[in-house]
């Protein structure tokens, strides 16, 4: 039985509900169990920040390298590229010479972007 295409997406909705329930049910059950059968025993040490047994100093809002952000920006460019490449791969069989060359130029431009970032030293984790 081959269902019409919308139905395959209907299944995904069904699956999404099932998957969310799968994560949330144990959380809810454990919460109910804790509420009725195991009284909470809070304590200052127990509820403190965990850091290898030493007392925590300062804020958790620490400074971190900006390098992480640069990679995120590069990611945006190349992820969109990948999305464009997939339809190209599917249509490849019936592609005219013009389309083929256009796609190669597209890949070239992105490779150029990568080379530029490399030259600028963005890709080096110092």
């Amino acid at each position, binding site marked *: *039985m081959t269902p019409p*295409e919308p*139905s*395959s*997406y*209907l*299944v*995904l909705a*069904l*699956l*999404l509900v*099932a*998957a*969310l329930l*799968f*994560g*949330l049910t*144990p*959380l809810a*059950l*454990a919460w109910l*169990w*804790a509420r009725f059968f*195991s009284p*909470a*025993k*809070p304590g200052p040490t*127990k*509820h*403190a*920040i*965990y*850091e290898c047994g030493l007392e*925590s100093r300062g804020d*958790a809002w*620490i400074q*971190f390298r900006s390098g*992480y952000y640069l*990679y*995120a920006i*590069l990611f945006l460019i*190349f*992820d969109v590229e*990948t*999305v464009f*490449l*997939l339809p*190209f*791969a*599917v249509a*490849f069989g019936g592609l005219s010479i013009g389309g*083929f060359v256009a*796609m*190669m130029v597209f*890949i070239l431009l992105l*490779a150029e972007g*990568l080379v530029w970032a*490399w030259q600028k030293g963005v*890709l080096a*984790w110092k």
Partner: protein
Amino acid sequence: MDWINQLSPLWQFTLISSVKILCVFSVLMFIVAYAVWVERKVAAAIQDRIGPNRVGIFGLLQPLADAGKAFLKEDFTPDHVRKAYYWLAPAIVMTPSLLTVAIIPFGSYLGGEKMVIADLSVGVLYTFGIVSLGVYGIVLAGYAANSKYPFLGGIRASSQMISYEIAMGLSVVPVFLMVGDLNLTAVVQYQAGSLFDWLIFKQPLAFAIFVAAMFAEMNRLPFDLPEAEQELAGGYNVEYSSIKFALFFMGEYAAMTVGSALLVTLCLGGWSLPFAGLDQPASTWLGGFLHIGIFLAKMLFVEFTIIWVRWMWPRFRYDQLMNLGWRRLVPLGLANIVVTAVVLWALAK
């Protein structure tokens, strides 16, 4: 079985899909539970220990004991966390791996029914969309904990996962250049003919990049920096305990299982074997079950290899990790696309 035929097609379809979802979830969770047991036993064997052997013979009931313990432990929420995110993160970690399962053909046909939950024409595009969501659970956990180590773990995870997602996306493009279809059922059928039609032999480089990226996406050694025990004391899940911690754990193993399934589908021939008529979609119940068995066997082999690697390799440094991702795998992936496209083009003309 008469009452099924009397239902409207839409209800029939919904009913059959629900049964499929239920079966797949059960099998997946069984595998997840025992993957933990296998991991502990393999680790023990490699390190010359015995491993779990107290609960049941060979410690086979260990997963049940662990689940019971995780459920009954006190589920306390530390004072300093952001409560809403803290509660949501474990559930979010589980969801993407469960959603990815939808498009993986885990068998050919069983009683005239296609063995895939949703046979989407956009296939792998859906996978990449969902896989990208996987990072949210981990980053959210790191942020919600409001504590230094989890925060660093979350930041590391985000950078690592988005970097290797690109390598992963680029690595599969040559595969689809050859197959000409994003649908994973079509990918399996393309590979069904002979052993050398398997894309691991036709696209060894794509396979290698995909495997490396898969390890990084799953945060498994040698890429497990987000949870490096010796540096971050466990990373993004440090502030979690009891059932919430168990959900992170299960999420990791579910991602591992689904990743193996995806690798088998893309490069190792899916449910097919190139002899004894097993390369054709099954028309009998026996053949259908046999195909599911073949798929599971391949998948478990890949999963075993992943576990094996963990106890054999040291961890990369973060700069090595980023270097490998951006300066080696991304250019290699791009080159592989261009070379494959040009060669295919030349052959066709």
